[in-house]
C-alpha cells in the first residue's frame, strides 16, 4: 500500500513537471517555427513544422532593419554598465560596511541610498526625461549612468550586509605586510566578495540587457541608439503586417542570451541563490 501510494505521487510529480515544461517551451517552439516560415505557410497552419527552411525573414531583419547595430548597442550598454557597477558599487559598499559602526556619515549614506529601492521607477520616470534632456544626456552614455545608479540601491544593500560578515583579519594582515588600502582592497577583499558580487552581476546583467522602460524614456527619439528591446518594440509597429519577420527578429534577439544561459547556467543559478538564501 505504501509502495503504490509512492508510485502514484511519483507519477503526479512527473505529470506536473512535464506539463509545466510544455507550457514553458510552447512560445519558444512557435517562435522557432514561425521565423522559418513564409506568411502563406503560417496562415495555413500556425503550429505546423516548416516544410523547408525559409531564410528570407532573417535576411530582411539583418539587412534592412539593421539588427547588428542594435545588438552592438545592447552589448555596449550592458557591458559598460556591469563594469561600472562592479567597480563603483563594490567600492562604496566596502567603505560603508567597514566604517558604518564608526562614523555617522557612512551610516547615513547607507540608509539614504537603500531608501531609493522603495521608490517606484514611475515616480522619477517623467522628471528624468526632462532632466536628462536638459543635460544633453539622452543618449547611451546617460543610459549607462542611469543603470549604474539604479543598480546601486539594491547592490549596496546586498553587498554591505555581506561584507559585514567578512572577517577583517586578512585585511589587517595585508596592512602589516605593507599593503596600502587600495592594494589590500583589490588583492584581498575583492576575491573574498566573489559570491555576492556575482549575484549582483547576474541580477543586473539580466535586468540591463532586457530593460525596456529606461531606454524607452531616454533613447526612443534616436533610432540609432536603440537597444534590442526597444528595437523589437518599434519593429512590431513597423512590420506589424508581417509577423513571420517579427518572429525572426525575436528569435535572433533571444539567441545571444540563450547561448549565455547554456554556457553559464550553473553560475547564473548559483549567483541568484547565493544572495537570497543564507545558509
Amino acid at each position, binding site marked *: 500500500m505504501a509502495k503504490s501510494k509512492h508510485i502514484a505521487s*511519483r507519477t503526479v510529480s512527473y505529470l*506536473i513537471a512535464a506539463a509545466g*515544461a510544455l*507550457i*514553458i*517551451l*510552447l*512560445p519558444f517552439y*512557435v*517562435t522557432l517555427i*514561425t521565423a522559418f516560415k513564409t506568411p502563406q505557410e503560417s496562415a495555413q497552419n500556425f*503550429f505546423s513544422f516548416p516544410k523547408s527552411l525559409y531564410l528570407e525573414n532573417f535576411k530582411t531583419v539583418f539587412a534592412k532593419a539593421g539588427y547588428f547595430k542594435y545588438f552592438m548597442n545592447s552589448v555596449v550598454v550592458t557591458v559598460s554598465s556591469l563594469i561600472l557597477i562592479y567597480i563603483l558599487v563594490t*567600492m*562604496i559598499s566596502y*567603505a*560603508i560596511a567597514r566604517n558604518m559602526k564608526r562614523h555617522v*556619515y*557612512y551610516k547615513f549614506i547607507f540608509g539614504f541610498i537603500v531608501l*531609493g529601492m*522603495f521608490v*517606484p*521607477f514611475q*515616480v*522619477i*520616470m*517623467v*522628471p*528624468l526625461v*526632462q*532632466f536628462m534632456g536638459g543635460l544633453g544626456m539622452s543618449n547611451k552614455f546617460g543610459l549607462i549612468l542611469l543603470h*549604474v*545608479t*539604479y543598480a*546601486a*540601491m539594491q547592490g*549596496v544593500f546586498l553587498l554591505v550586509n555581506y561584507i559585514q560578515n567578512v572577517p577583517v583579519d586578512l585585511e589587517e594582515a595585508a596592512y602589516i605586510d605593507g599593503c596600502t*588600502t587600495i592594494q589590500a582592497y583589490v588583492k584581498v577583499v575583492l576575491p573574498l566578495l566573489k559570491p555576492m558580487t556575482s549575484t549582483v552581476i547576474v541580477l543586473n546583467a*539580466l535586468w540591463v*540587457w*532586457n530593460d525596456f*522602460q529606461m531606454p*524607452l524614456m531616454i533613447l526612443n527619439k534616436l533610432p540609432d541608439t536603440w537597444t534590442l*528591446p526597444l528595437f*523589437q*518594440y518599434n519593429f512590431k509597429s513597423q512590420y506589424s503586417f508581417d509577423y513571420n519577420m*517579427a*518572429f525572426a527578429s*525575436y528569435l535572433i*534577439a*533571444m539567441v545571444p*542570451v540563450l547561448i*549565455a544561459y547554456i554556457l553559464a*547556467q550553473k553560475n*547564473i*543559478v548559483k549567483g*541568484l*541563490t547565493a544572495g*537570497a*538564501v*543564507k545558509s
Partner: protein
Amino acid sequence: MKKTKLVQRNQVLFLFTLPILIMYCVFFIVPLLMGMKNSFTDWSGTSADYNFIGIQNYIKIFQDERFRNALVFNFKYTFLLTVATVVISLIVAIVLNQKIKARGFFRSIYFLPAILSLVTVGLIWNELFYRMIPAIGEATGWGLFQSSWLGSPKLAMYAILIVNLWQGCATPIVLLIAGLQSVPVDLYEAASIDGASAWEKFKSITIPYLIPVLNMVIVTCVKGGLTTFDYIKAMTDGGPMQSTESVGILIYNHAMQEGKFGYSVAESMILFVIIALVSVVTMRMSNSKKVGD
C-alpha cells in the same frame, strides 16, 4: 606611523563613497525633487511657462475616475499575481526538489523565461493569443475561446496575468528550490518517526524554513504588480477601452501623450506613497509569521 596610515585609510574609504553618492544625488534625488516641484504646477511638458497651482493636481486626482480605475486594476492584478506566483512556484519547486529523473533538465527549462526581455515575451504571447485561442475555440466550440482574450475588456487582464506568470515564476522557483534544500533532512525523518502526515510536515517544517525566501518573493511580486508596465505596453497598451490601464501606463500616457506633465508627476507621487505603505504592511505581515526566533 600607524596613525597616519589610519588617517590615510579613512581618506581612501571616503573617496570610495563619492562616485556612487554623487551619481545617486544627480540622477535620482534631483529628478525626484524636480518631480515633487512639478507636481504642484500645471506644466504640460512642452510649454515654456507654467503656474504653481498648489495641491490642485492632487485634489483632481482623488476625483479622477480614470485614476481610480487604474488603481483598482493594479490592486486586483497585484493580488492575483502574488497568490498565483506563490502557489505555482511552490508546487513546481516541491516537484523539482524530489528525486525525479531528468531533474536538472527540468530545472534548466523552468528558468528559461527569466532570461528573456519582458517586451519580447509580451510580443510573442500577443501573437499566440491571436492564433491559439480561436484555434482552441474552433476545436472545442467553447464560447470563452472565440477570439483573443486581449481584445476583450473582461479577459485582457487575465491574458496579461498568464504571460506575467509564465515569466515571473522562473526566479521564485529557483529561489524556492534553494530554500527547500536548506531544510535539514533529519527533521523530516524525526517527524516521520513521530507519525506526522505529509501535510503536517510541510506545514511545520518546510514552510518555516521557506519564510525568508517567500518574503522576498511576495515583496517583489507586490512591487512588480503595483508598477506593472512592460507587458501591458507590449500587449494592450492599456486597452481595450482602458480596461488594462495600470497606474504606470496612465502616468506614461498623461505625461508623454496627453500633455499633463505636472498632473502625471502628482499621480506618481501618490503611487509612491501607496507602494511604500503596501510594502511596509506586507513585510510586517510576512515577518510576523516567521517561526523559530
